[in-house]
């Protein structure tokens, strides 16, 4: 009975962690699926969101949930800035993204990643910091769930589902979907491709930074300038697992990864659990590049 409790709690924790991973990856998924570019500096924007939450906490007493909202708002501006500095030149007037543009974005965002993480070291110092936020626990049968993690999970799922609904039910959302399938089709729907693409990017960054804020609840001592180097690959794996461009795929990929890591940790040391989780990418790319579910 105790064993069952342990397994269940492991599973539950894995899923909650997975939800946070999912929202952190969701922004990447949105941009990747719609604009078809991969932002190598994705991890650095997560880091930005996390530090945002940290400073809002230190100077304003904001808890991570509130910070997520603030970060999300900031993220919109950041996203627009990113689109017009990095992507506009490559995408403007094009019907389909070329291989060359893919490579240019890959390399330029890699440079951005270098730039941002090292600038962060200078600006924030390399010290590991964290937010102390413990709203208590709630009992669920024989399990004790930390409320902080629970709230974050709820908010994470909310963000992802809202985005799905937004894409399905609103006019702009449909324009974004049209763009992701066929750029010329966007104009047929009556929308301006640049406006659509830049909005999608802005939303993606908004979600990413909000995700970074939410992530802080799970890493009470882990906020540091180089944290992007861990969460970017995690995001990439999640997007590939769920299928690039499939919005609910973030949730699926995140849950899968969270559970895999958590379950593996019961049998092997943490590092190996992560190693295996990362390597999952390879067989998925080999055999089901569209994602593990149709």
């Amino acid at each position, binding site marked *: 009975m105790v064993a069952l409790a342990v397994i269940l709690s492991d599973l539950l924790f894995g899923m909650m962690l997975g939800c946070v991973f999912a929202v952190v990856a969701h922004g990447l998924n949105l941009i990747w699926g719609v604009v078809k570019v991969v932002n190598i500096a994705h991890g650095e924007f997560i880091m930005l969101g996390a530090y945002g939450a940290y400073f809002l906490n230190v100077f304003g007493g904001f808890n991570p949930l509130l910070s997520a909202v603030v970060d999300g708002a900031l993220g919109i501006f950041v996203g627009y800035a990113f689109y017009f500095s990095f992507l506009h030149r490559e995408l403007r007037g094009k019907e389909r993204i070329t291989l060359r543009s893919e490579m240019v974005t890959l390399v*330029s965002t890699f*440079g951005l990643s270098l730039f941002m993480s090292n600038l962060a070291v*200078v600006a924030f110092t390399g010290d590991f910091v964290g937010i102390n936020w413990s709203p208590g626990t709630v009992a669920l049968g024989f399990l004790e769930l930390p409320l902080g993690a629970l709230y974050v999970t709820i908010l994470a799922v909310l963000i992802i589902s809202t985005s799905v609904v937004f894409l399905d039910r609103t006019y702009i959302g449909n324009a974004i979907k049209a763009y992701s399938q066929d750029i010329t089709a966007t104009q047929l729907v009556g929308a301006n491709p640049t406006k659509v693409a830049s909005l999608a990017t802005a939303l993606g960054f908004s979600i990413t930074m909000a995700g970074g804020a939410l992530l802080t609840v799970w890493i009470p001592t882990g906020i540091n300038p180089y944290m992007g180097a861990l969460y970017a690959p995690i995001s990439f794996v999640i997007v590939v697992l769920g299928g690039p461009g499939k919005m609910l795929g973030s949730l699926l990929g995140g849950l899968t990864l969270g559970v895999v890591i958590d379950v593996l940790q019961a049998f092997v040391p943490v590092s*190996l659990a*992560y190693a295996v989780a990362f390597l999952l990418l390879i067989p998925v*790319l080999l055999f089901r590049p569209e994602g593990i579910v149709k």
Partner: protein
Amino acid sequence: MRIAGLGVTFFGLLALMLLLLILPFAFPFSTSVILINLLFYTALAYSINFITGMTGYVSFGHVVFLGIGAYALGASADVYGLDPVLGVLLGAALGLVFALAIGLVTLRFRGVYFAISTVVIALAALNIVLELPQLGGSQGIILNLGFQPYSWYYTIWGIVLFEMLITYYINRGKLGFGIRAIKSDEDAARSVGVNVSALKLYLFGLSGLFAGAGGAVFAWTTSGVFPYETFSLTFSLQMLAMIIIGGVGTALGPILGAVVVYLPSYYFLTVAIGTQLIIIGFAVVVIALFIPEGIVGTLKRRSASLRELLE
């Protein structure tokens, strides 16, 4: 003016290597140390040039081969007392083997997916090594190889020389055409008979071989192998920055890139290396967006006379 198809650049580089060969006899140790590091970075730049420079497949996780080479030397010296020079050969061999194995799987993936899978592999390798007590786990391996600047210098010099010659050999002649075709349009290359998979694998293998050799030398000069340092993505990033700045795929690019990336850092030593990386990161962004061919490429494009001269 070309002799046997080889131009000014080739002889210029040979002359440079000759100069570097005799330099240590004229100057004291301190110069050698800068040169050793510069040559080390040049070696890394040439190694990633083989894959990323020539085919356009961006290997973000390339540091994994550096790590493999470093651990090859570290473990063999520590456990078997293997002579470091043999350790370097071992590093090269293992680098080659792993590159072929990894490449067989990952080179099937298109651009972005290839790049991501290399990162994932590098991270997985780091995490695996951390859990292997035979390789020192998170503590790494401390070696007692002593201060051997002349051995270091000539070993890395030899590696760079080989890389240079092979780069030339590949760029001239049939292989060069095939590679440029692949870089332009892989599928079209296949349609005219180029064995794209074999060629990519061959280049990836070369890049792994030389990165492995370089990694072994790194372990030798630092007299130790430490996982976080050795599998650091910063190395990958610096390697890419060097060829992007210098000019991808060229013979001159890696050296130029190494000079631009490494030398300033030597003077930046008083300031944290982080600042240097900020500048490099910024440079990469600007170059990727506005001057994608790097120094060599852009000069070649702008001036017809330089086109013959620079390679």
